[in-house]
């Protein structure tokens, strides 16, 4: 991955066109709704404006190359972790929080360095076994500090934080080391966000039955199934992202995005509901916190990566 390679990649240029066209179309639809039909869509404008910044930022990172993508994912993980820690009060313990930050930095370094055995970028073997070392490290922190009170809670939250936000989300950055980085990265991010939008739209239009009444009252079965239908069709519509995929891999990709995306959303909702908060933060206007935005990617990134690795090898 490099700016030059990006410009010469048909996949990258096609996505640039699709995302650009979608943003313009969405802006046009919103304009018609606001000034043509005089609907009150003020809140949607706020969300849309945030997309106008986020979409170019994501594409810019992918354009800039492998290192930029890995580091950008690491920064999102660190600030996502910060939101999680602030929400769960793990943040009162700066040693534990700092320990998780260190773990995220370690995952980033492992994603950047070359595999000492094959010489290829990204030390995949160590990356997949990193939780062993990270959990051991987190367990050592209270021992070093000679503390017991409240440590079980701190250890548990730190481990969840590292595995969930640091490591699972880190898989997205690791995809930059694969042999089809543009197709995989752009497809995963694009399809997951489209899946979210589809769930929201279907839910608004035809939603009747609550999907999980105690967890997220606004999500409906109709929205989830509509989104799944979109996600199942997408691997064929955007087949140019991975021309080597057969029907089995395309179906799996559809299922991973369609179901995994929803599960990612719901699992963050479980945490938020238990804490009694609405959003994980207010970093992105109209979207909530960073975690509220990347929640679906946390599930889809690792599942997609391991599916690809199983069938074709990552490199």
């Amino acid at each position, binding site marked *: 991955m490099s700016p030059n390679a990006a410009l010469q990649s048909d996949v990258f240029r096609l996505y640039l066109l699709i995302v650009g066209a979608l943003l313009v179309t969405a802006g046009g639809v919103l304009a018609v709704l606001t000034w043509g039909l005089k609907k009150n869509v003020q809140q949607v404008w706020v969300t849309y404006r945030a997309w106008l910044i986020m979409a170019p930022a994501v594409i810019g990172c992918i354009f800039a190359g492998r290192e930029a993508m890995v580091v950008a994912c690491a920064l999102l993980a660190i600030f996502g972790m910060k939101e999680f820690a602030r929400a769960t*009060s793990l943040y009162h313990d700066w040693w534990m929080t700092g320990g998780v930050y260190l773990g995220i930095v370690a995952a980033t370094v492992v994603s950047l360095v070359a595999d000492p055995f094959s010489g290829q970028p990204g030390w995949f073997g160590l990356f997949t076994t990193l939780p062993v070392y990270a959990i051991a490290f987190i367990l050592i922190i209270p021992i070093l500090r000679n503390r017991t009170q409240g440590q079980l*809670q701190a250890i548990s939250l730190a481990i969840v934080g590292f595995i969930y936000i640091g490591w699972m989300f880190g898989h997205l950055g690791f995809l930059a080391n694969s042999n089809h980085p543009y197709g995989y990265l752009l497809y995963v991010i694009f399809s997951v966000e489209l899946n979210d939008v589809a769930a929201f739209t279907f839910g608004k239009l035809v939603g009747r039955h609550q999907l999980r009444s105690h967890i997220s009252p606004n999500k409906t079965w109709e929205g989830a199934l509509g989104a799944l239908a979109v996600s199942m069709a997408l691997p064929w519509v955007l087949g140019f992202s991975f021309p080597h995929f057969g029907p089995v891999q395309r179906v799996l990709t559809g299922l991973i995005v369609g179901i995994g995306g929803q599960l990612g959303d719901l699992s963050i909702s479980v945490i938020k509901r238990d804490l009694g908060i609405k959003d*994980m933060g207010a970093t992105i206007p109209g979207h909530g916190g960073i975690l509220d935005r990347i929640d679906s990617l946390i599930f889809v990134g690792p599942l997609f990566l391991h599916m690809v690795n199983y069938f074709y090898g990552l490199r």
Partner: protein
Amino acid sequence: MNEWRYETAQDLDQTIVERLRRFPREADMLVYGIRALSALGLRAWLRIYHRLEVTGREHLPPDGSYVLVANHTSHLDTLGLLSILPLKRLHRAFPAAAADYFFTSVPRIAIAAVVVNALPFYREVHIRQSLNLCKQVLVNPGNVLILFPEGTRSTTGEIGVFKPGVGLLLAGTDVPVLPCHIDGAFEAWPKQRLLPRPGRLRLVIGAPRNYAALQPGKEAALHICRELRQAVLELAALNRRAGFRREGPVDQGAEET
């Protein structure tokens, strides 16, 4: 199984700017880190560029809360006073800053909240509330409150009238207050100048005093203001004499003013 206790951050649903504007602010690793680094930088800058000299450092209480009160002619006053505190007190020192000036635009909020750790003081409205914030700061042991009772930077370099707020805050409390005087800040970076020019800064810290014996009220407040202003004026005379002694002869008339 017992339920876990979560203490979710109070400002979770606020944007970064809103979080910086509120007081008290939640502790933040990134903010503490930037503040510590900039404190080191500022201390070096004050030493090298402004040749900051401090006398009376031994008056600073080693623990417990206290109040620093000083004359105000320049932004350098705040930075100078912050730089004399031990680094471990850095995040527990709160200079009261005019909210209508420092907490209105994003760059100023960032500097006031992150670098200076300022307490937003509303000097036109809600004065009571701002004084209550100051009181809260002093309740927690180990905090330092920095006040400029003139309420604004002097445009002439002279020490103006002390506003009664400081008196209302201190009357009847046993928190020690240390009068201070900063000399040279007006010449180096007066209100009208955009950037500071090199110039020597001299800071004198006076002996601590407290007003626990006074009945809180207007009478006591005015008395405290007068006394503190007098103390700062005396330190000013001391400061200038010490400065002139080091820098050689000057004409008699200047020493009197």
